[in-house]
């Protein structure tokens, strides 16, 4: 039981990690959104597995909430934007894909190095996976820096958020529900707002590439 719990948990976390890497890897925006959906599923799985392991129904419920919001609602919202976009590709990121992936690797190593104390403090099988959460945060951040498309940045932002959620799930015995609800709601609202903004930018000002948005500067 415990072995399968650990391996299931490992599997779910690896899914989240790999999808995070995928968002950096694939140039197609549609693919990135799909990866995000899968990531949401993975995250939900982590919550459910942990909840089941700790007999914490609230956590299982949170998993469900995550599934709905992050695996379904958010990707759907972003997907709508992508669908309207004719050339939905990240054609030329600021740093090319191989270099980005190397960068992501370095950041992952950094995450492992940086979270040694946290891992040591937590000391549970789940806790040992915390570095992945931090790594995902870094990768998401990194993709926001190097990707030119608005949608890519939204994906990156959600990736960061997922990374933090992962860290929270793994590191604590469950965040209070009210907090979790609030956080999730915030994320959803943020995605809605971002989606509306992207739509407006595309429709009214024909802005697709974020580097077109450089009117405000000193």
């Amino acid at each position, binding site marked *: 039981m415990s072995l399968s719990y650990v391996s299931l948990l490992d599997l779910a976390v690896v899914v989240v990690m790999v999808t995070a890497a995928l968002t950096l890897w694939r140039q197609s925006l549609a693919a990135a959104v799909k990866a995000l959906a899968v990531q949401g599923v993975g995250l939900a799985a982590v919550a459910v597995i942990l909840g089941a392991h700790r007999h914490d129904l609230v956590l299982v419920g949170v998993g469900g909430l995550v599934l709905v919001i992050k695996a379904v609602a958010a990707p759907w919202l972003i997907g709508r934007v992508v669908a309207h976009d004719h050339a939905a590709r990240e054609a030329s990121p600021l740093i090319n894909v191989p270099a980005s992936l190397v960068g992501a690797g370095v950041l992952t190593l*950094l995450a492992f190095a*940086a979270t040694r104390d946290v891992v040591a403090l937590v000391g549970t099988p789940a806790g040992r996976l915390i570095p992945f959460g931090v790594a995902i945060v*870094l990768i998401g*951040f990194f993709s926001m820096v190097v990707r030119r498309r608005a949608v890519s940045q939204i994906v990156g932002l959600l990736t960061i958020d997922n990374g933090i959620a992962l860290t929270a799930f793994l590191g604590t015995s469950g965040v209070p529900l009210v907090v979790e609800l609030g956080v999730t709601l915030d994320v959803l609202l943020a995605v809605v707002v971002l989606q509306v903004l992207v739509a407006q930018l595309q429709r009214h000002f024909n802005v697709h590439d974020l580097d077109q948005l450089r009117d405000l*500067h000193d």
Partner: protein
Amino acid sequence: MTILFVAFLACAGASALAGALMPRQGRVLASAVLLIGASTFALVLAGRVVSTGSDFTWSRSTLLPLGGLAIRLSPLGALFVILSGLVAAASSLYWIGYAHHSLNARSAATAFCLFVLGLLAVPMAGNVTTFLFAWELMALSSLALVAHDHARRRDAIAAARWYAVMTQGGAVAITFSLAGLAAHAHSTSFVRIATGATSLTSGAASTFFLLALVGFASKSGAVPLHVWLPRAHAEAPGPVSALMSGAMVNLGIYGIILVGRVLLHGGEQWWWLVVSAVGGVTAIVGALYAATSKDVKRLLAYSTSDNMGLVMMALGASGLTLATGHPAVAALALVTALVLVVNHSLFKSTLFFAAGSVHAATHSRNMDELGGLARVMPVTALTFLAGTLAVSAIPPLNGFTGEWLLFQSLLHALGAHGVAATITVTLAVAAVALTGGLTIIAFVKAYGITFLGRGRSASALEAHEAGPTMRVAASLTALACLVTGVAPYAVIGVVNRALDNGPNSPVAGWVTLRLTPLTGALTPLYLSAALAGAVILVVAWRALVTRASGYARVATLEPWGSGRHNQTARMQYTATSFGEPIMRVFDDVLRPDHDVDVSHVVESRYYLEHISYRSANEDIVERALYRPLARSLDWWARHTRAIANGSVHRYLAYGLVALVIILVVVQ
């Protein structure tokens, strides 16, 4: 005494309110009368402090958040309150008349009242918070007044900018110094700071002193921090210039004494060498630019710098001799410094009153366009003449005693051993002397070109005498110059009390000033009487021979112009030409820009169509120091624009880099 203080505060506050709320009609009159009241209360309060020799204290912790309001008027501070009060009362009186020309708007009236309040409050402050509050209030309100003429004069805008930046820079230095001292003493009270300062390390004390010096000396117009002063004092409206030059600059000196002598107990020898050297350079630079200036108020402003330089030399000599163990000389030099301050206040406010009247009457400050005003503005001219003689240290006006005391101080300070001291003091004497000569050039020019001869422009010819209150204010201060010149002990006595010199005053005597225990004596009273007697005798002789000659009437003849056909007023020497020899002598220092533009007639090179001559005499310090500084700041600002180049990726990258650094470092 509390009642006096409260009455002072109430009057000052009421005057500001009157300025802010009253309708145009009677606004200035009400404000000015209330200000005169406030000044009077402050004067009486300060007078009682000086006469009793005990501090007046008043504090409220509920006022001024985080620091509390604390008033502690010491006899020394009281001397400065008296000065500020006298100048403020005279300026307010002057303002009533001046307001017919300008300076009558709501904002200006309020600022004027707040300025006076600040001037009177600074020397009353008993803790750091109160001091800086009053100091900055003074700066802010005077800034508003300097910018007063902005809609008409571009120079006023430049002046306001320079003033804003320099005064804030100075305030920052002072704040650092006082905050540091307060932190060391665990109290903002000056009394506690003075006790606590004995345990300061030499380095810390020196740092605090030098920074305070930067701030205070800048307020007093010390080179190289003076560049704002000739602009601001010149651009400010008449009564404000008088307040700035007659009262505000004094507070810089007060600050140096407060920090250097009261809070830090005299400190080290080299501090005062620095003060002396700065004073010497200031005096010479100020006098040079005064001598070559053609704007009468700018000239007066540079002369303010010059005089503050002399004060600093005396202060330096005092500190120097105190540190080397010659308390008698130190006491004499300190008295000298304060006497110089008092004298300067009196004659400089007179001069600025008169110059303000000229400006109001002719709308010009360019002496090249003035002339002959003594005939149309006789009272103003007479007051300016009194100021001229006083600032030139000519007996029987008050500047003479100051100069004499300064010479005595420096002479006796040479007794202080040490090569550095000897050289500094010798150079100081030379600086004093050179400054004296240049001052005479400057003021003979100022009076001669502006008031004597014939009018050089229509505005000068159409000028009218200033209003009655303006004349009275200028006459009162001019009279004060004469009285304190004939009976300098009126000033020295107060200074002695303010310094708590006790029975062994370094200089005393109503009829004859005697130095004790040093040797030296002067009797301005008898000298003045002798001069007056001699003048009467000579006039009588002239009247006698004139009667005997049979030509009772003085023939009024056209000025001798070598018989040329048409001799015009424009052929007179101008301010520019009057100062030209000095400009040439000091060419290497002043580095003026000359621009001669000659165009010939087509037919022959020997005939000229017209010649235009321009000369700009920009402050060398401004050019050599501040221009490059401004350029480098500008360079920095231009090359850092890329920080915010508009790219959201770059912005996010800043965060990522910071995050990575955190992850790497925080382990």
